[in-house]
């Protein structure tokens, strides 16, 4: 049975590695370019406090709109071109447009509808 557990662990690990790679590629593609402006989802490193994120957004020339259910991801708005560049200069990892973020749980017959959930999270209009 030990060899069975080993096979399971190796298979799970291999899938995770491939998954992480695909996730990294996709989220990199989703990031807004530096010259972008408007309402964005600004993602900071998790170690940043809410106060620090708030201040960073202001220094970047924008205004904080609201926090999300992820403590280190805030909705922010900046009118000037280059707002995203400013956010990155103030420590943001990346900024994104409206993204369908949310957990999911697909049971055998479930139709997962997350719109109410995502609106409450401030991630959808």
């Amino acid at each position, binding site marked *: *049975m030990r*060899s*069975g557990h080993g*096979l*399971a662990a190796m*298979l*799970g690990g291999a*899938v995770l590695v491939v*998954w992480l790679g*695909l*996730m990294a*590629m*996709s*989220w*990199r*593609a*989703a990031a807004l370019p530096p010259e972008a402006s408007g309402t964005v989802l600004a993602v900071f490193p998790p170690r940043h406090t809410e106060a620090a994120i708030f201040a960073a957004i202001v220094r970047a020339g924008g205004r904080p709109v609201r926090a999300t*259910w*992820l403590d280190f991801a805030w909705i922010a708005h900046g009118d000037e071109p280059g707002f995203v560049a400013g956010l990155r200069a103030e420590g943001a990892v990346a900024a*994104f*447009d409206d*993204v*369908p*973020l*949310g*957990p*999911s*749980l*697909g*049971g*055998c*017959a*479930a*139709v*997962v*509808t*997350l*719109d*109410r*959930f*995502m609106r*409450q*999270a401030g991630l*959808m209009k």
Partner: protein
Amino acid sequence: MSQPSSIASPSGMSWQTPAVIIVCGCLIALIGFGVRSSFGFFLEPMSAARGWGREVFAFALAIQNLLWGLGQPFAGMVADRYGAARVLIVGGILYAAGVALMTVSGSPGMLTLTAGVLIGIGLAGASFTVVLAAFARMVPPERRSWALGIGTAAGSFGQFVFAHLGQAFIAGYGWSMALLLMAGMVLLIVPLAGALSGRPDYDSDPTVHKQSIGNALGEAFGYRSYLLLVSGFFVCGFHVAFITVHLPAYLADLGLGIQVAAWAIGLVGLFNIVGSYAAGVLGGRYSKRYMLSAIYFLRAVVILLFITIPPSTVTVLLFAAAMGVLWLSTVPLTSGLVAVMFGPRYMATLFGVVFFSHQVGSFLGVWLGGYLYDRTGSYDVVWWLGIALGLFAALIHLPISERPIARLAPAT
């Protein structure tokens, strides 16, 4: 994993070792079960792009689930007759075609055809049900329960993988390209199915009882233990579907933060992987019917505690973790019992019928949840119904005979 001496690869191919069979089967289960779990994220962008109301997408997915359930026994029959690989290949192609064609579905009718009909039928052919039946045939009996557990856990893992990947693809490439990428991944089922090719020549084996599919079905439906198993799996479908669809809304009604709902759903998914695998391992050592009875009883207890104790973040997360362990852990045990009762000869057919019962329960869980909420203003009635059904399932699993049916019993 050493090559067991008691079984040769069905097609005679030396590369078709148990490890290869398990890895490829698990990847098929992961992809097949996982891709569909991301469809909910396409609802909003697709509906917005096409100018549809949400009911269009929801209807298509409801048709998908219905056809998956209805098609499963038939897919199982074909797999038992012609081999799992062929069914997986055809199912994979239909599934991939349906996903790809969703990108050009410009009308509600077209979406129902692609996302509903094509994918629903494709799922019946390419789902973990066919994979588990193949495992039951191709893996030695002493490894069977473990194999069923790892196959189920792989499907559970696929939900986690593709739910996040679907979101990331949509964010990075837009919903249309995301669907095409998903379709490409589903097509991987075709080459992977090769590892499950071949089937034992039952017709030429003098030790195998000769039986048509019709006879097998008649025998099963006349066997009390099988009917009890079918009834119990209905309850499983009811529980998982109701909680899946309605838990976030229930938590929102309680005034708990969105972050709590997010963590809860994530925990169910992660603990599900652990629970499924553990059930497979333990099912090889202990009584499957007693384990199933305990799982359903514990579900009833967990739900009772959840709705009676004052809600808080802690209770929600504990509920999620407990339900996660008890989530799809029923699958390897239930499928294992089908194999014990009737042998692997018509496993795909008979477990396909059991799965259909699960889908009927799922449909009722989703629909009744919304219907009774609208009628009563709360989910309380449905939660109590879930508790009652859990206790019912716990009871009916107890008298299940965990032995081969008389014709399969070894002569004494």
